[in-house]
């Protein structure tokens, strides 16, 4: 495995057929699968508002965004498969609750403003997390991430635009935007994962260059980016302790309620059961389409091989 670590240390990419430590392969499968599952589960909270989008323009944009999430899932399942697992196997693990998706999608989307808050905060946090993965040591994962990051910036901007419009609208619209930010702010900060001193796998992932920055560093970066944007929006982040710290050159912010994070992670969030149940049902109800397409392809293969024999 020396050649493996030499390549990684030289900032070269590892490609599918290279020798790699089994633990590296397993870590990547788990991480990429969790990422892929997050993309397709993430279609649900937003799909919830497609039929109720306030205009045709907003509806077309939201459909494009949800379609992107499906595409991102497919890029990532494809990347995971280069490590020797089957997509069907990974979907089984998701449906059986044996692999996770991001906890953020276990929160409900109660109002139209949530489409704005998800785009601005959740996709914003995702971008901060994902940009460094574009330089991940595993080639197929890094390449998938380049495509995803390009598309995510549209997601974040459309979310910002929704909130900007609501914030400058009627008092009720402004209040709706503020309520959405109040509910999504803390869960978005939790998306970066537990604090560094409680994140046991981080050091190994850094040594393998799967991960480039620590959870706390990325979280700080996100806060620093977001605070001035909230001012432009005319909305308040629900943390009275946010203030600029000139000494650190960063914004200070309040303590995160990690008991909530772990409760949601362990299945006790508001929507865990609903998300998984709907995912399973969609898969089962789509079975006839997959079977029909397979039968059609099999039939045409038979017809053409018979024709070839004649």
């Amino acid at each position: 495995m020396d050649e493996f670590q030499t390549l990684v240390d030289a900032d070269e990419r590892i490609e599918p057929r290279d020798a790699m430590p089994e633990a590296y392969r397993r870590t990547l499968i788990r991480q990429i699968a969790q990422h892929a599952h997050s993309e397709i589960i993430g279609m649900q909270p937003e799909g919830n508002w497609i039929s109720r989008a306030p205009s045709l323009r907003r509806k077309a944009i939201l459909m494009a965004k949800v379609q992107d999430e499906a595409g991102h899932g497919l890029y990532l399942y494809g990347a995971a498969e280069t490590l020797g697992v089957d997509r069907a196997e990974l979907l089984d693990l998701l449906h059986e609750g044996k692999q996770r998706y991001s906890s953020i999608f276990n929160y409900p989307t109660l109002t139209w403003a949530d489409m704005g808050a998800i785009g601005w905060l959740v996709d914003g946090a995702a971008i901060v997390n994902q940009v460094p993965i574009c330089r991940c040591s595993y080639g197929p994962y890094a390449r998938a991430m380049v495509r995803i990051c390009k598309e995510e910036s549209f997601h974040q901007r459309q979310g910002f635009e929704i909130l900007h419009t609501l914030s400058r609208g009627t008092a009720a619209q402004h209040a709706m935007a503020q309520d959405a930010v109040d509910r999504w702010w803390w869960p978005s900060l939790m998306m970066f994962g537990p604090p560094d001193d409680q994140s046991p796998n981080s050091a190994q992932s850094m040594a393998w260059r799967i991960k480039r920055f620590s959870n706390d560093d990325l979280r700080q970066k996100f806060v620093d980016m977001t605070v001035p944007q909230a001012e432009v929006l005319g909305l308040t982040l629900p943390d009275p302790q946010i203030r600029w710290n000139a000494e650190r050159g960063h914004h200070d912010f309040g303590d995160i309620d990690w008991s909530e994070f772990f409760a949601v992670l362990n299945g006790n969030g508001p929507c865990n059961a609903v998300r998984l149940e709907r995912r399973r049902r969609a898969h089962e109800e789509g079975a006839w389409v997959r079977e029909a397409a397979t039968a059609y392809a099999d039939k045409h293969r038979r017809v053409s091989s018979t024709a070839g024999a004649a």
Partner: protein
Amino acid sequence: MSKRRDWPLWEVFIRSRRGLSHQHVGSLHAPDAAMALRNARDVYTRRSEGVSIWVVPAAAIVASSPDEKDAFFDPAADKAYRHPTFYDVPAEVQHL
């Protein structure tokens, strides 16, 4: 009904614009070539990233092995004379 878990895997190659060659962009599962092409269009060209798509059954690709890369590519390693920079040319010579 066959018992296989998923549709065959296809590798997708896209020509992003005229004048460039097709480049590998990723893979997908599809039951047949026609569905693979349509799915490739939806998955890999949602923002007009291509003017032409190839889909190739992944099983049909023959690849060199990374294990033998030294031996396999060695013959090219000691032939610096295949590069123009190998040759000493007087400084005053133009257009050479």
